[in-house]
């Protein structure tokens, strides 16, 4: 029943891909951008002055200032998170949760004075990164939606491989001179197959990163639901210490920072203070991941009241735990040097292109016969395609543009930048439904290209005075211009595209003589045909 299996897998691939395609495009796009999260954040706060290095004294003093601020502003919180200053980001970033339902507290301070940092308020690259796995929704909702879509993506990958008839013979093939559908199918296959190991890896490791949230049943069965105990036993975190219930005072953290820095080599990244007003307060010093694929952070835990070292956690992970941390590490690619990061970025772009070409292919394969108007389903898919594939890049450009155009001291400007992102996305999507399809595509792409072109202009005009390294900022701007150029080229190709021999094909409803034989994946053609043929019949068997 080989033919039947391939048909079923083709059906599964088409529909699973479509249903989650728009979300996946957003996830892939923002994820690919996140490979350069530190660079984006740096560009979006040009006032920030980097430092050559930060010694333990600076860190210790910064930690004391942070704790002082938190004791004044976050006394009721159960846990304080302090991101310590780094040479390329000399800021104190504080985070704490108050009551459930209320937004968490944040502060960005100058590490030397403890005063709020004199920078434009922005979410920077962090917004795109969090959007990648939370979609800017409440964390639980967003992560479940992205996780569900990622699982369906895995199904689409597997069914895509099963259904791809000539995966080796067509490996290098990109036919631009045949029918539009053939060309789009080739593009979809090439972007999918060429980076297939990457796509499989990135999707699987993406789900694995949050696997304990999606599949907590192992912890439920073996640990009676105590996830903290599980994490501690794997060796990834220090043993959690429950609060004593008695009040206590926190010892100065400066000496703790010094001692931690002396215990473990490598940059100290952050401090976590658990139960700060309790007698059993715990201060954990978390270090940057050592060089390697595995995503693990060495940690030193201190007793908060006395400042004595309670536990040192460094390496020593067992095979399964190591596999887990290596999978997370592969997904985040923190280990990648400059050149390897470019390759990861290219693979991410190919994944994004794979999703986009798949979405477009869906509409191209179901174009109505000439003379007939497309049905509402087709129009919906088309509108969402344009709104996502062109609108989302445009939204990212709008986010950058807003960063430069909004006054640096405007209250709530970080939220306004995010508003610019979403309103551009929404506007493009809504506008995409109005013009005829080809105009909608080229118009939206031209808009995106124009927005990207505006970004370096705005940068030079408004922020050039703040640059500390003009070459770096101009380099970033050059990359943005390259993006604009790519979008403009694609827009031009769409506007000028001449479908070869389409007229003859449409009139007869069959391929014209001399045209390539019917595409090997019959299910892709089956959509407007009579019921009961192809994959629908086989899957419809109850």
């Amino acid at each position, binding site marked *: 029943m080989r033919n039947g299996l391939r048909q079923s897998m083709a059906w599964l691939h088409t529909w699973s891909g479509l249903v989650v395609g728009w979300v996946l495009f957003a996830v892939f796009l923002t994820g690919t951008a996140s490979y350069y999260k530190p660079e984006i954040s740096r560009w979006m706060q040009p006032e920030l002055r980097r430092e050559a290095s930060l010694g333990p004294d600076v860190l210790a003093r910064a930690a004391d200032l942070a704790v002082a601020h938190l004791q004044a502003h976050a006394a009721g919180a159960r846990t304080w998170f302090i991101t310590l200053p780094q040479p390329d980001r000399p800021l104190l970033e504080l985070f704490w949760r108050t009551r459930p339902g209320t937004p968490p507290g944040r502060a960005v301070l100058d590490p030397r004075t403890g005063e709020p940092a004199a920078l434009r308020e922005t979410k920077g690259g962090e917004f795109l990164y969090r959007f990648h796995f939370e979609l800017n929704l409440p964390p639980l909702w967003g992560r479940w939606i992205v996780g569900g879509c990622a699982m369906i993506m895995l199904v689409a990958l597997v069914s895509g491989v099963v259904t791809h008839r000539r995966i080796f013979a067509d490996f290098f093939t990109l036919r631009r001179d045949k029918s539009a559908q053939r060309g789009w199918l080739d593009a979809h296959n090439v972007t999918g197959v060429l980076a297939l190991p990457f796509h499989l890896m990135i999707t699987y490791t993406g789900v694995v990163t949050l696997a304990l949230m999606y599949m907590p049943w192992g912890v439920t069965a073996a640990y009676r639901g105590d996830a903290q105990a599980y994490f501690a036993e794997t060796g990834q975190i220090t043993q959690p210490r429950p609060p004593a219930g008695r009040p206590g005072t926190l010892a100065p953290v400066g000496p703790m920072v010094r001692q931690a820095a002396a215990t473990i080599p490598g940059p100290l990244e952050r401090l976590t203070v658990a139960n700060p007003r309790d007698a059993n307060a715990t201060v954990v010093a978390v270090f940057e991941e050592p060089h390697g694929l595995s995503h693990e952070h060495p940690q030193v835990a201190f007793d908060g009241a006395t400042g004595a070292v309670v536990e040192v956690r460094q390496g020593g992970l067992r095979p399964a735990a190591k596999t887990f941390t290596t999978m997370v590490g592969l997904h985040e690619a923190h280990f990648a040097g400059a050149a390897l990061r470019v390759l990861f970025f290219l693979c991410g772009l190919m994944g994004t292109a794979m999703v986009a070409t798949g979405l477009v292919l869906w509409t191209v394969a179901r174009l109505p016969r000439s003379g007939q108007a497309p049905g509402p389903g087709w129009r919906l898919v088309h509108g969402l395609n344009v709104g996502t594939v062109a609108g989302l890049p445009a939204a990212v450009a709008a986010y950058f543009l807003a960063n430069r155009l909004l006054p640096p001291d405007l209250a709530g400007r970080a939220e306004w930048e995010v508003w610019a992102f979403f309103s551009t996305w929404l506007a493009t999507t809504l506008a995409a439904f109005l013009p005829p399809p080809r105009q909608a595509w080229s118009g939206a792409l031209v808009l995106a290209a124009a927005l990207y072109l505006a970004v370096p202009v705005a940068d030079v005009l408004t922020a050039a005075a703040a640059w500390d390294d003009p070459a770096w900022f101009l380099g970033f701007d050059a990359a943005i211009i390259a993006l604009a150029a790519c979008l403009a080229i694609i827009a031009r190709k769409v506007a000028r595209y001449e479908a070869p021999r389409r007229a003859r094909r449409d009139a007869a409803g069959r391929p014209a003589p001399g045209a390539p034989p019917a595409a090997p994946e019959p299910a892709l053609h089956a959509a407007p045909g009579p019921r009961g043929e192809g994959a629908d019949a086989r899957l419809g068997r*109850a």
Partner: protein
Amino acid sequence: MSHRRAARADILGRAAVAGRVVLAAGGGYGIAALATALLSLTLPLPRSEAVTAATLLSVAVMVGVVVAVFAARSLLRALVGVGAAGLVLGGALWLVAGAIPPGPAA
């Protein structure tokens, strides 16, 4: 008369496909969850290692069940397959869980 029969067959066909989707999603997650819990308790590894290994595998299990449900020749076969796997895993889990003495609660 045949027109109505064809329309009825069409509705049944769509219902069968919808059934596969529901079975794949629910059954896939259910089987993966049962397998994760069972493996966490039965793998001959230290406790945290067993949970990690089982959880890592659960992703592949779920994808496998989804693909199998759609590769099956009929919805009925898929239902039988998923049901049987669920019964076996559930039964095994019940046996194993019963054999573990109750420990300290979370």
